[in-house]
């Protein structure tokens, strides 16, 4: 139908989905500008140290240009590399200034440094291939499948790394946080002094035996819990009992507690 079919640009988000890196795109298997440069450099088929940096710069700029033409959003570091290479190329092409300005590294040195970086990356690529090619345990070579029943355990080695230590620590701290981290847990107690005042206030009305629950203030969901209101009220009432202002009664263990004022303790005229 339409010829504007997207060319086979085989890209995918880089291996992980970290928010910070989500927009790093893996361009046809390249991980970053340096990897692209290395691939381009290989096409020159020369010793990486004899590389023509100007040619490389042109190739890279063309690559970036092409990617943008296809409306492909390049990660910023590709563009930074592009502008740096454009700058380097222009300096390389300029007639060599006599001595240059003191604060600038000669362009040739910068080019050599780039070639060195590429050579180094290339060496590491080869190294990782060489490692992969080695006989690997449980892939190519195998140790004894059935060690003796009385196994000899290498004993002068302790199997714990700093990483293990760190993860053990973090795991526990997480568990600890999970145990302790509870923003609603703040316990607020009903102060005993308040309970005493409250009791003295309502004491005149306690002419008859009244259950503790009805005497204690009611929790409103914000302040102290109902349990705390009950506990403090009970404690305060016991103080009043001691003073002779009040009587407390319980018919059986765990049964309801009843409170009543002690007639003699208070002047009657206070009763409304």
């Amino acid at each position, binding site marked *: 139908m339409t010829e504007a079919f997207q060319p086979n640009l085989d890209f995918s988000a880089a291996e992980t989905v970290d928010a910070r890196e989500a927009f790093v795109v893996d361009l046809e298997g390249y991980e970053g500008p340096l990897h692209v440069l290395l691939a381009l450099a290989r096409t020159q088929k020369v010793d990486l140290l004899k590389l023509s940096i100007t040619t490389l710069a042109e190739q890279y700029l063309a690559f970036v240009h092409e990617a943008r033409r296809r409306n492909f959003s390049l990660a910023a570091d590709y563009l930074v590399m592009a502008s740096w290479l454009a700058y380097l190329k222009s300096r390389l092409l300029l007639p060599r200034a006599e001595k240059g300005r003191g604060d600038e590294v000669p362009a040739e040195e910068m080019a050599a440094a780039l070639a060195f970086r590429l050579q180094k990356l290339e060496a590491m690529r080869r190294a990782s291939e060489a490692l992969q090619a080695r006989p690997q345990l449980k892939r190519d070579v*195998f140790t004894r499948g059935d060690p003796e029943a*009385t196994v000899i*355990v290498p004993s002068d080695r302790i*199997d*714990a790394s*700093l990483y293990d230590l*760190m993860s053990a620590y*973090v795991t526990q701290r997480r*568990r600890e946080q999970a145990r302790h981290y509870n923003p609603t847990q703040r316990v607020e107690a009903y102060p005993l002094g308040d309970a005493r005042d409250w009791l003295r206030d309502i004491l005149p009305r306690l002419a008859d035996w009244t259950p503790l629950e009805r005497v204690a203030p009611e929790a409103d969901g914000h302040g102290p819990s109902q349990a705390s209101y009950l506990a403090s009220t009970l404690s305060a009432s016991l103080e009043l009992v001691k003073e002779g202002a009040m009587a407390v009664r319980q018919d059986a263990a765990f049964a309801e507690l009843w409170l009543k004022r002690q007639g003699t303790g208070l002047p009657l005229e206070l009763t409304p």
Partner: protein
Amino acid sequence: MTDLRFAPDETEIERRVEALLFAAAGPLSAAEMARRLPEGADIGQALAGLRARYEGRGVELECVADRWRFRTSPDLSFLMTEEREEPRRLSKAALETLAIIAYHQPVTRAEIESVRGVSISRGTLDLLLEMGFVRLRGRRRSPGRPVTYATADRFLEHFGLASVHDLPGVADMRAAGLLDLSLPTGFEVPDPSRGIHEDEDPIEDADAPEFAQDFIGT
């Protein structure tokens, strides 16, 4: 490296039988080996060859119930039984305890337990002490004067640290991917290089011979 050559010779068959028996998780029958060898391979001959080859060595070829296996020579069994040494693998509990001591030192047993959320079994601390990873450091000047623990030289040696200052910190944990952004605020790792605490007394009991070293290091 595929098995393309035709009719591997006797030596090659013997090599293959040797490798198969060595790597197998249990004794193998001739039929089981034949399945992995070129057709027509003379397994009987290979086994006879191997048997002769290992005769009198430290390892011998043995046939039990029509299955074959290598085993160490019976006369050397004393070598094996002798060393039933405690495997020096740190249990999870030991590693976790060690981690807390490392990061929170000097730390009391109760403090370790409060981070772990479970009580420490006696054996765990003893093992760490015995291994030389942990030492008694002092006594906290608080009710009960509990003993405090700290890491010992062997710990630093084992983990290749010059001093406790070099323990990886929060940033490193994050860099190693252990911590993510969702961690509750206020997660802090104490700086293990905090100096000697004023709220601590040296251990004066004779039960701590390591004590003399304590203040020599950092």
